[in-house]
């Protein structure tokens, strides 16, 4: 038992040095979405959340990341960082607060709310020119998902 106690600080050390604000890579085709359970397939829409303790949640779509937070999957105070895929540069993760969002029915996302994210203003504008839709901030995305999935989010959690 004493040896176990000696192990604890060591483990804590190991655990604590994990928590860097960098995203873990997603294993497309293998990892499942933490919210909707679907296999994450499309590098254009994936999202990720890391807690302060270093636990990682992966999502197949931006709406699932939003839904996860809205349904209280993780408390706001426990969030270290959130990332979304840059639709214009597949496979590139950007911080949610640095991202600009577009909701367009012509860009179809895995969970049907059709939200895509961009890191640069030009990419956003080009997508908007090509596909139309509504440009949103992260806060507006949260409201939009909350509105769209109202019954699901309220009745389930």
């Amino acid at each position: 038992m004493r040896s176990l106690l000696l192990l604890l600080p060591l483990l804590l050390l190991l655990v604590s040095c994990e928590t860097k604000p960098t995203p873990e890579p997603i294993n497309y085709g293998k990892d499942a979405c933490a919210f909707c359970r679907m296999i994450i397939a499309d590098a254009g829409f994936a999202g990720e959340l890391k807690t302060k303790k270093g636990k990682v949640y992966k999502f197949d779509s931006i709406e699932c990341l939003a839904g996860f937070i809205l349904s209280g999957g993780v408390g706001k105070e426990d969030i270290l960082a959130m990332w979304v895929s840059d639709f214009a540069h597949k496979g590139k993760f950007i911080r949610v607060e640095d991202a600009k969002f577009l909701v367009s029915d012509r860009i179809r996302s895995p969970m049907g709310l059709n939200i895509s994210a961009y890191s640069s203003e030009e990419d956003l504008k080009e997508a908007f020119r090509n596909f139309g839709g509504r440009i949103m901030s992260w806060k507006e995305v949260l409201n939009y998902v909350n509105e769209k999935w109202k019954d699901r989010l309220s009745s389930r959690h």
Partner: protein
Amino acid sequence: MEGQAIFKALIFVLLLSFAGFPKTIEVCPACPVKSIKRAIELSEDGDTVVVRGGVYREGTLIVNKSIKLLGEGNPVIDGEGRYEVIRITADNVVVKGLTIVDSGRSEVEDIAGIKVEGAKNCVIEGNKLKNNFWAIYLANARNCRVVNNWIKGPFIVGEVASGNGIHIWHAKSILVKGNYITGHRDGIYFEFVEDSLIEGNTSEGNWRYGLHFMFSHRDRYVNNTFRRNGAGVAVMYTKKVVMEGNRFEENWGGSSYGLLLKAIDDSVVRHNVFFKNTTGILMDECQRTRIEENDFVENGWALRIWANSWNNVIRRNNFLGNTFDVATNSRMNPNRIEENYWSYYRGYDLNRDGVGDIPYRPVKLFSYMVENNPSSAVLLESFFVEVLNVVEETMPVVISVSVEDERPLMRRVDWRR
């Protein structure tokens, strides 16, 4: 010489149309009409275009009239890796007997072998679709039949960018029957499709799902076979689905399952066979769904029910030789599990009423641990866990208190009778 032939054909066509009858236009490399595009141009609503054997490379064929497009003698229409092959925008179109190969691909657009957009009463039957990005794609369609097509996608192991075999989006009253689909992302994909039937299809070797089904209410799928798909079958965010008589086989892998039920309410899963899947059924956020008279045979887990699933009924199923019968992450059991046959049940039936005298506890300690904390999966086959399990079985303290079948059956349920 050629010009003369076309002229003769034109006269013929004109005569027919003047007669006011639906006419038939033949297309073949040696016919007066050599191009399908031309034939469509020449046709009117109600006409039939018969495409004879040969290879046709004509870019995208847009069918904007209510015609029948019939292949005879195995004509091949080639998208040359660049084009959407056939796009149907008119109602009452029939596409039959064609072989459609090599559609274009795109990062942004969903390019298909046969796409139906905003049309009613279409019939897509008996076609062969090979190596297309999307194969058959219906958007905003109504009352269509997709029947007896043979579809093989371009799936190469590790490649992510392939589309679905039969993809149906925003549609109503669709019949998908007797198709064979392999090598796509999802074999069959339903999103916002209502009052439809999926029957007698075989979907195997697709890299994500055999069937992927979202936001599609009041549909039925019966007598299909879903085999060796990457992650199995996913039925999600839907009310009132009927799933009957299907086979879910050999969907095996770390994050694979036979059937994922995610946020499914008031639905029925009956008379299905789950054979050798990592997980037979995974239930997440389901309510008032009945799982009745199914066979769970040699799966890793027959059934995983998460604590967020309530008021479901699991009744009269056969659990035969699964590594673990039921897994849950909850001490409570907000679902009814009763009158199932469990091959691991070791109780007696002294009063001979066909029901075992002591309850059966289907949740093993390892299952409970893994559901609560996936990291503990490294203890699979650990002797320590086996010992704990025996302790748990003799003096239940941690789990299974309320997860039990109080009326386990002594004999298999013979639901096939």
